């Protein structure tokens, strides 16, 4: 974990984002190289995928707003979990930003009431850990879309569990 942090820290521009929808068991993950480029995105089922993508993409506005709202000096002690980014009629969008500005976004269907703040938080933590593993892979080129099976299975497991 520490290793990865060091690796990316230099490039403040490197940003990732990530998102999960749960009720429909959709997991989306995004990252951005120059700016908010999707690293990994997953949604289940796929019929509303486009809407998810739009939602996640728009949510980056709020993520950025929240990051910049936190003072630079406070950046180190910053809480990684950003909480509910904004509600929409259909989804709840949660955000999480690592110290290296990798963004994770989880989108949960509004009608899903089983997921409370704590669950979302632990999902993010799991994602973060798994993402760290991906980054530790010497064959992974930071910035490429994630194609790790391990990561994929963790995401799938989370979505099954959540739905």
């Amino acid at each position, binding site marked *: 974990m520490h290793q990865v942090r060091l690796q990316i820290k230099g490039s403040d521009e490197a940003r990732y984002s990530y998102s999960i929808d749960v009720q429909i068991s959709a997991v989306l993950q*995004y990252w*951005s*190289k*120059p*700016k*908010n*480029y*999707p690293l990994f995105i997953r949604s289940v089922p796929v019929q509303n*995928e*486009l809407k998810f*993508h*739009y939602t996640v*993409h*728009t949510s*980056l*506005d*709020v993520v*950025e*707003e929240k990051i910049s709202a936190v003072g630079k000096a406070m950046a180190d002690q910053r809480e990684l979990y950003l909480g509910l980014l*904004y*509600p*929409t*009629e259909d989804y709840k969008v949660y955000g999480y930003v690592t110290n290296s500005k990798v963004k994770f976004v989880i989108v949960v269907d*509004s*009608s899903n*009431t089983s997921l409370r703040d704590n669950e979302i938080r632990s999902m993010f933590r799991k994602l973060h850990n798994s993402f760290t593993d991906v980054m530790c892979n010497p064959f992974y080129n930071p910035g*490429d*879309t994630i*194609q790790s099976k391990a990561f994929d299975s963790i995401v799938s497991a989370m979505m099954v569990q959540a739905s």
Partner: protein
Amino acid sequence: VSWRAGSLPPVMCAGDQSLFTSLYTSLAQQLPKEPMEWRRSYGRAPKMIHLEANFVQFKEELLPKDGNRALLTFPFLHIYWTDCCDTEMYKASVKDDMLRWQSTLRLDGSVDWLIVVVESEAKKKNKTNILPRTSIVDKIRNDFCNKQSDRCVVLSDPLKESSRSQDSWSSFLTKLRTLLLMSFTKNLGRFEDDMRTLREKRTEPGWSFCDYFMVQEELAFVFEMLQQFEDALVQYDELDALFTQYVLNFGAGDGANWLGSFCAPVKRWSGLLLRRPIDMEKRELIQRGEASLLDLRSYLFSRQCTLLIFLQRPWEVTQRALELLHNCVQELRLLEVSVVQGALDCWVFLSCLEVLHRIEGCCDRAQLEANCSHTVGLWTYATEKLKSLGYLCGLVAEKGPTSEDLNRTVDLLAGLGEERPETVNSLQSPYKKLNEALSSVEAFEKHYLELSHAAMEMYRAIGRMRSSRLIGKSLAEFYMKKGDPERAECFLDDSLRSYVAEGWSLQVTHTRKQMAECQKLLQQTEDYLQTSALLAGDANLTEEERKHFYQVILTFASQPPAPSDQTVALSMAAFAQLRQMQFSPPGAVVHVGAALQLELRVRCLMPVAVQVEQLAATLHFSLEQGGARGRAGGTQRRTGQEPQGQGDGVVLFPQGSSLAGAGMGASLPPALELYEMQDRSPSDSSLNSTGVVCKNMHLLLRRHDSSASLDTPTAGALPRSSVTLSLLVGLSFSLPPLSTLSVGRVQFVQSHIYPVVQYEVYSQEPQLTIEPLSDNLLAGIPQKVKFTIATGHYNVKKGDALQLSNTDSMPILHSSCCSATILSSTGERVGERALSVQSSEKVTSISLPPTPPYHTLEFQLEVLCHIPPTPFKPDIERLTNGEVRHRPKSHSQADSGMIHIDQKVSIDCPWSIYSTLISLTFYVPFKAKHSILSAGKRKYIQVCLQNVSDTNFQLADPVLTERQPTIPTVCSQQSVFCLWEMRWAKHLPLCLQCAFSASFAPVSASDAHTAFKPYRYEFQLDRTLYSLKAEILPSSGDQHCRTGALCGLEVSITRQAEPSETEGEEEESTEIEGLRTTKLMYEVVDNSSNWAVCGKSSGVVSMPVAASATHRVQMEVMPLFAGHLPFPNIKVFKYLPHSAVPAIQPDTDSCLENDTMSLLDKGLDDQGDTASIRSRGSIHSVGSGEQQRGLPMPRLEPFSPGQVFYWSQGRQVLVLPVTDDHVMEVNVT
């Protein structure tokens, strides 16, 4: 029960009403002035509150009925007012009245009461027979407050401005506040307990949420009454949470009966109403249990909103409003409440606007603008809802609403009900807006655009560009529906750009599809085709869709071009990807006229196979003066891999992520490509500077928003086959900056190929090189040299010949079979041709076989270099009686000591009018030395022949005498010694020129046939002229020399040879009294410090020029050590008087000059003047060289080796130590 906002907790006043009325005003004013600390139960933090009360007249009917614990009208305190100061009167009426009051209270269970006795001086004065004033109070206390004496207070002269009056007021107020608080605490606590009990019963069958709602809301009212808005809000929030939980539980299958009433179909959707503090209408519905879910939520939110605004938290209102609206929609879905389609949209739209209006009503403009981020969500939500209403009611369709749409609109508007009285007169009410928007297509457009633009503006203002673009995109959809593609285009373009820039493929695909539609309508053929191409290659689309877009291109391509039309150039990135390029030959370096094959691997991104009609590439060429890359010299070292550097000539092009879809590949910004750059100085390759160079800066730094125009390659289009170009010198081509694929009228152009691919075309001048086959060419033996002709651009024709100018020292030997090999530029052997060599006297002509350009012609010729007689320089090492003199040799190689000869050959080549001068270096394989070994008059000559080459030689005929030694073999780096004795015949000159010659042949040429080559070595021999004998004699009377004791040194110089005629010239002689004499100088030097020469150590003697003439010199020396000491060195020089040829300093290594200066002065007797002249000359030489030149100077000249024989060379003499040597003291001068 009716309660209005602003109500205060009631306090009932009994007793003297007129008295109370007179005090009421000041009482109501004074009460809230001082805060009181309110300590509360259940661990809630104490608060400072300002108490207020509503003082009402005591009426029995106003007392709460039994069991009714309604807090709102509950009299928290009862006060009895009296100003009685007359005992009689008290006894007569007041006491009875008070008793009655008390009993009423007791019946009611009220224990919070207070009796106020008002005293006034005026009254006292009127009555004369008054009791002491305390007595009335005491009486009352006695009668009523049996244990609570504090229940009775005295208020003195309340209407007067005196300190006494103020004191009594303040103590009264304190008491009043304390009692009020006590009452609050007690009654509220009891109420809360009851309320909790009620809540705990919620699982029981008969429990009703509405009833409980009323109870808890009462508590909220009381808190609000007490100005405790925070606490009041908590009550509502608790109700909210409780209700939400029930709905969730219902969703989970755990339904409560009472919830049924909320599941009734929604009939009214008039939106939130936030303008009233309490919406009594809705409250009654709730009370009656007839409220719908929307009613309850609306009411609850309106209360929360009111309280939040009291708390000055308007932005929380907006946030909660958005949550509420989302939540309501969800809850209705969850509870499966049937709602007319569009009704919820109406409700949400109205509610959003209502909230916004409410907020606008309580904030100023600046505040609103600063808090866009809080309101923009509502604006967006309203926009979305209006849009969906518009679609629903057919207001967006081009044809306008159908009758069905109109019916639906009427139904929706009916559900709104009548406009509320609060807004009837306002022009901009949400109700009016919705009504108007749904009334006509134009009005809808107006309102929708207004809202959209407002929301977009706000998003932009707070920097949420993505959200803004999303609205822009839905605006574009709207415009498209309206058939207005012009306006849609810019919005689509804007969003598309941002999606592409951030790499979101699904959005890109979706937006592109819309864009294609838009461009089609706008008849932007080129853009449409480009977008179609991108879509046809988009992996996110289905096969059918892709084929459809592909068909678009094909259809266009197959149309016969209109005369004015040119072909359409599109970016190739969408159509095909260049994957790989392969050069053959791999180095991508060819000479002029050669063929370079280039294999392209292109990946087609189209869904079906494409027939490509033409493939063309444009070349960009640059002239490189430095010549080929390889020869440029590594001033720039690149750490990154160079495309051509891969060795197999394959250039791979980086791929965009194939998963993200082909369209994405082109949009990915390229990664930085950094290379290390080192700048070295050309002379000593030291590092001047180093740095990092970004190679693809042009890609990174170019503007991303402006699309580069696509240039169609026109000139220099290449045929499909290999590229044939004839070009000039030293060109390198970057290939191709543009490449094109054509399908019908459509051309796909790739504007840049990255990494840069280039090949090099070079041109070369013909070149002739001659190099030896072996490492070194040896002189004296025939050896082969290789001629290499790189033909370059010259075509060697039949009859072309090389003309070699002959030199005597190096003839060209022509062997019988001589053939030339022709090699192609890649080093392949092409053929072998015979070569004819013809020699004339001056010129050797080699006729070359015909050779095509850029080939190499190789052949070998045999050459021989004659060894010139050695030494060609006079200074060769000589050994003379073991004395060695070294001289530097300019011509010998430092390592091997081989002497080399540079042989220049001038060649006339057919391709040049100038002669080529080629230098060959030959090495002389031998080195000869000779030494003369003398024994008295007998002389031996030793000649040493050293082989310094790496070849072994046979040696024959070493000639100096008649005797012929056996043929020795001189191995490499070895020496052969030959020895001869010399006998001097009579009348031989003093000096003899000798020559040593031998024949040699390499041993390796084994057969006897080997031609022996001559080797000559010339040298000079001298006869012995003088012999020198030294003798050391111990001091008289002693048998041996002793250290420290003077010994005699006797030197005798004897003339050995007769003078000859020739000699006279050589030897400087003078005629003195008929006797020819020659002057010699002798010198005793002891370099090893064994001897101290005492007295004179040198001198000049005249020797008669006659055989056996002897001259003896006596000197004194002193041994400094004991043992066998070698004799001191004695040297003899020719002494040439000043008449001789002007001054040449004596031989450099004669060290006598300075050392012996003083000795000369002393020791010279008859030639003293000469010495002094010398001495002076020497001194002068320090002062000025001019003078020395002018002065006649005697000089010394050494004898040639062999001319002087030293008898005592190597002799030793025994020296004994002195007995008391430890006190020896030696002075040496």
